[in-house]
């Protein structure tokens, strides 16, 4: 079995999803089963991570067809890390879903589709075939479309249509790029493409396909100027769904950008200028968007956009220090963004709203809880020694060394604006006195829940906060891991040799 170990995260999620479909109407069973299943998936992911960490890049040729002809699954360090992070986020969100998502929604196969979404994410991280990557993206879109529209409220459907239309458009551009690339090199295996693309005479066409990939993945990862679908849709579904979207869906776009622009188009000069400009604009527009919003969920959504810019900019610099910063930021960001939306879900359950003007007095009423929530919020800003601080050092250092002062300025601007907005949020939500609000009827407040039900709200947040604390205080380990991934990405011969067994 150890030959196939990297495919196990896919197999377990597929299996759990099928089992959950058999128990379509038994919601209570589904809740327990999904939590247990996600715990098993977490153990599998840890196993895969340790195995890849000790034994290097693993390759599975599905159907025993040899690369570059068959579809390969490649578990390099980056993929294994992201699979582990997906499992951590999935475990936390599945616990959070059990009580916070209402029964009417769970009845329509919520957990089954949730496992399909995790299957798609794991598949996208593990595949070594670019057309297969497209297929995993489709699985992600279809399952996320079900999750975003389940419940069928009016604003939810409005968000879902925007989300689906834009993401479907992005997939079409991705497919076009694939077609152009396949026409140029005649292969779909990413390692093989990487070898053959250097020999292509028609450089203009190579650049066109690169730009098409950039647009396709750019829409999915919500970079400037095509980010507008994200604020229009992410706040509409329940917080648990928003959390998994915020933590992982845009990051899978970033992952695809990292993979394609290191492995296939590594070091194309004109691209770095383009990526850098987009990154600066993304940081700026995301930051400015966050400052004017009054709804907590919307503030966090603009932060997603803002912080995507950090990663894209680091990718544009394309040095080992910058890439280490990007990977560290990615690790930090997946955990923290998932947690932020869980927090907004918890606050919604306590107060019945996420509008910052109507919130207040959280610190007076729930001092211990506020302390817990402070940790992820401060990590987001990057107050040393919490987790956001360390990747920013690498990114700032790299931008300074590369003499990209605009990006340097944008990084400072992005961090500063995060600080301002979080300070505003803290004083509005936690310190200010509770203003008079009309509580909606038929709404079960946090205080009315039983202790076990409260646990399902607090535990995922505490769990993710613990991971964040580990990333902050164990930064040495994460930095080593990031540097190893960065050097694997820059020196892509290792990846190519592993896939093609040279």
């Amino acid at each position, binding site marked *: 079995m150890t030959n196939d170990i990297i495919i196990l995260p896919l*197999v377990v999620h*597929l299996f759990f999803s099928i089992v959950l479909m058999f128990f379509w109407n038994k919601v209570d069973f589904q809740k327990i089963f999904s939590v247990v299943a996600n715990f098993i998936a977490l153990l599998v992911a840890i196993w895969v991570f340790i195995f890849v960490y000790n034994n290097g890049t693993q390759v599975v040729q*599905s159907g025993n067809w040899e690369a570059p002809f068959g579809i390969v699954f490649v578990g390099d360090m980056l993929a294994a890390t992201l699979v582990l992070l997906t499992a951590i986020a999935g475990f936390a969100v599945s616990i959070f879903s059990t009580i916070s998502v209402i029964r009417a929604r769970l009845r329509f196969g919520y957990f089954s589709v949730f496992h399909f979404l995790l299957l798609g994410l794991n598949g996208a991280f593990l595949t070594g075939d670019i057309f297969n990557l497209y297929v995993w993206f489709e699985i992600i879109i279809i399952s996320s479309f079900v999750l975003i529209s389940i419940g069928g409220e009016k604003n939810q459907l409005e968000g879902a249509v925007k989300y689906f239309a834009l993401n479907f458009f992005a997939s079409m551009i991705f497919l076009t790029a694939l077609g152009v690339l396949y026409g140029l090199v005649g292969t779909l295996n990413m390692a093989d493409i990487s070898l053959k693309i250097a020999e292509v005479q028609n450089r203009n066409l190579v650049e066109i396909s690169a730009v098409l990939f950039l647009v396709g993945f750019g829409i999915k990862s919500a970079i400037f100027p095509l980010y507008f679908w994200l604020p229009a849709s992410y706040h509409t579904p329940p917080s648990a769904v928003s959390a998994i979207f915020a933590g992982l869906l845009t990051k899978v776009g970033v992952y695809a950008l990292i993979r394609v622009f290191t492995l296939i188009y590594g070091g194309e000069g004109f691209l770095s200028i383009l990526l850098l400009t987009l990154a600066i604009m993304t940081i700026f527009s995301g930051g400015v968007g966050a400052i004017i919003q009054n709804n907590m969920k919307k503030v966090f959504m603009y932060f997603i956009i803002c912080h995507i810019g950090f990663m894209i900019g680091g990718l544009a610099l394309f040095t080992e220090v910058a890439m280490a910063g990007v990977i560290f930021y990615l690790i930090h960001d997946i955990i923290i963004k998932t947690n932020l939306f869980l927090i907004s879900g918890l606050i919604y359950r306590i107060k019945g709203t996420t509008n910052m003007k109507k919130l207040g007095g959280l610190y007076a009423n729930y001092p211990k809880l506020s302390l817990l929530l402070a940790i992820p919020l401060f990590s987001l800003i990057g107050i040393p020694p919490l987790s956001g601080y360390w990747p920013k050092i690498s990114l700032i250092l790299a931008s300074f060394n590369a003499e990209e002062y605009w990006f340097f300025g944008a990084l400072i601007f992005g961090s500063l604006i995060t600080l301002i907005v979080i300070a505003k949020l803290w004083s509005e939500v936690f310190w200010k006195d509770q203003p008079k609000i009309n509580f909606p009827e038929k709404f079960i407040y946090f205080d009315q829940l039983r202790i076990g039900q409260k646990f399902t709200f607090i535990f995922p947040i505490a769990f993710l906060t613990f991971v964040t604390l580990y990333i902050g205080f164990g930064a040495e380990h994460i930095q080593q891991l990031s540097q190893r991934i960065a050097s694997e990405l820059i020196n892509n011969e290792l990846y190519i040799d592993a896939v093609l067994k040279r």
Partner: protein
Amino acid sequence: MRTLILKSASSYLIPVLLIFSVFILLRGHYLPGGGFVGGLVAAIAFVLDAFSNGLEKTKTILKIHPGFLMPLGLLVAFLSGISPMVFSDLPFMTGIWAENPIPVIGAIGSALFFDLGVYLVVIGAALTIIFTISESA
């Protein structure tokens, strides 16, 4: 609208369509055909029955809810996918074949069970969609 012509024709057509769908399913792999097309043809047989005899009667013929066929088919396909990993330590989805071909059916391998899974999923999905639409109409 139920016409006598459609009703008498369907009673002959439905068994033929079902047998044809199995034929297409078994013909797959090397020749055009396979689980997807076979499943669609089988679904058409039931849809034709629903047109001519009414939806309620078709449901009694089917006995189980068509939605149940989807997880069942997925499970069959899934098991055929992981069987090489479990039984013979080969990579995921490798085709394993029985040594001697069986008369009429031909060579049996894990690919056939994968196709069978697809067949069931397609019937389940197509019938669930069509039944839901015709119920709400």
